[in-house]
């Protein structure tokens, strides 16, 4: 059986049998890998906490017919302990790994890997607010997956912005001609915050009022929900102060999805 070695971040784990776990990992070079960690639930396991979610490790696998098996693991980034010590960070990190799990497959996804590791590191160090870190991560992860939003120019016809309406179904801001009835309002402050989060311009996200953050989070949650087919379950369990509900997006009348614009 072939042996291979890769860096990986642990996305989630499932119990298997008496003392084993199936670990879902996002690797640097091999995309998403599901592998068995034998005996990891035993108190004296050689893996210890190295294969807990949010941990980054250098892992040796040997290939199996259906699942690979983890034979060795060395810690590269220990983000689990600081994250789990703060409930808000824990719920935020869980939403990130759930998104990463949904956005990646077995194809190599190095950019997704680096983005997730960077986001978990930033979260564990408390560099920015958990809500903003999550919003930025979701926007950038969706962009890498091919669903980059446009918050400046019209996402439908490309007319240069800024525009005052947003429609997640068409990919972001929409001009007055393209905006269907009931399109959500996109005020200047929320648009600037979303653009900054998408670009990772953290200096522009400081001192943003809480209401603006909530509106931006609502748009990000709606955008993620639309493109991932179903909502991220972890978003429903974010800590009380973190609003990631579609209801946070102001709407005048019930939205309708516009027909694709005919191209000449």
């Amino acid at each position, binding site marked *: 059986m072939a042996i291979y070695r890769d860096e990986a971040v642990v996305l989630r784990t499932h119990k298997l049998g008496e003392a084993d776990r199936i670990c879902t990992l996002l690797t640097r070079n091999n995309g998403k890998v599901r592998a068995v960690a034998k005996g990891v639930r035993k108190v004296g396991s050689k893996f210890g906490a190295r294969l*807990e*979610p949010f941990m980054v490790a250098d892992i040796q696998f040997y290939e199996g017919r259906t699942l690979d098996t983890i034979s060795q693991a060395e810690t590269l980034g*220990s983000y689990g302990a600081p994250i789990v010590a703060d409930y808000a960070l824990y719920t935020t990190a*869980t939403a990130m*790994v759930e998104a990463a799990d949904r956005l990646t497959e077995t194809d190599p996804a190095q950019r997704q890997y680096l983005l997730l590791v960077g986001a978990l590191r930033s979260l564990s160090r408390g560099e920015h607010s958990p809500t903003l870190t999550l919003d930025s991560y979701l926007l950038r992860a969706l962009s890498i997956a091919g669903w980059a939003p446009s918050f400046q120019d019209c996402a439908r016809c490309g007319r240069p912005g800024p525009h005052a309406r947003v429609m997640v179904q068409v990919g972001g801001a929409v001009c007055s001609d393209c905006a269907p009835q009931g399109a959500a309002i996109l005020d200047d402050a929320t648009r600037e915050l979303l653009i900054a989060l998408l670009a990772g311009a953290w200096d522009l996200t400081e001192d943003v009022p809480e209401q603006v953050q909530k509106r931006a989070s609502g748009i990000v949650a709606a955008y993620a929900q639309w493109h991932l087919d179903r909502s991220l379950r972890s978003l429903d*369990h974010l800590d009380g102060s973190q609003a990631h509900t579609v209801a946070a997006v102001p709407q005048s009348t019930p939205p309708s999805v516009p027909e694709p614009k005919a191209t000449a």
Partner: protein
Amino acid sequence: MYEGIVQELIDEFGRLPGIGPKSAQRIAFHILQTESVDVARLSEILGQIRTRVHFCEICGNVAEQETCSICRDPRRNQTLICVVEEAKDVVAIERTREFRGLYHVLGGAISPIDGIGPDDLRIRQLMQRLADGTVVEVILATDPNLEGEATATYLSRLLTTLKVKVTRLASGLPVGGDLEYADEITLGRAFEGRTVIG
């Protein structure tokens, strides 16, 4: 594939956790070769287990009456509550013979990715038990994994609003293990929780 009821029995055993097709077949043939009186006893117990076993109204542990034997025992220390995830954890702690207080079984751990939040656990019942002020210490004995730690973090934040001492089980090096194989987090915890011996 076997005929009729034999295959049905193998299929039923195969649905149990940790039992694969080979084990299911082995158990089924063991039952076929066992004295009928033993099979009848097994069948009787299986038939009664769902109707006779309940969850304790106070702590959530498995019980044959409305309350479990631990909650009914007046000799147990009523001022201590040990919070665990599953009823299996109660048995593990009872085997140590170190703890003489009461238990509270949460019924799992917070795991947002699986859709399990604080409202899905028996946290409200725990808060109700603490309301009368009898309990002076709550010991958080959730599993030392990520979900267990997160649940302990959530509970400690909730319980600090009450006048109750909140403690967490120590974690560190397993007895009988080698230091060189300990992972960084476990070893770090062992250093944090080191004790004076001289």
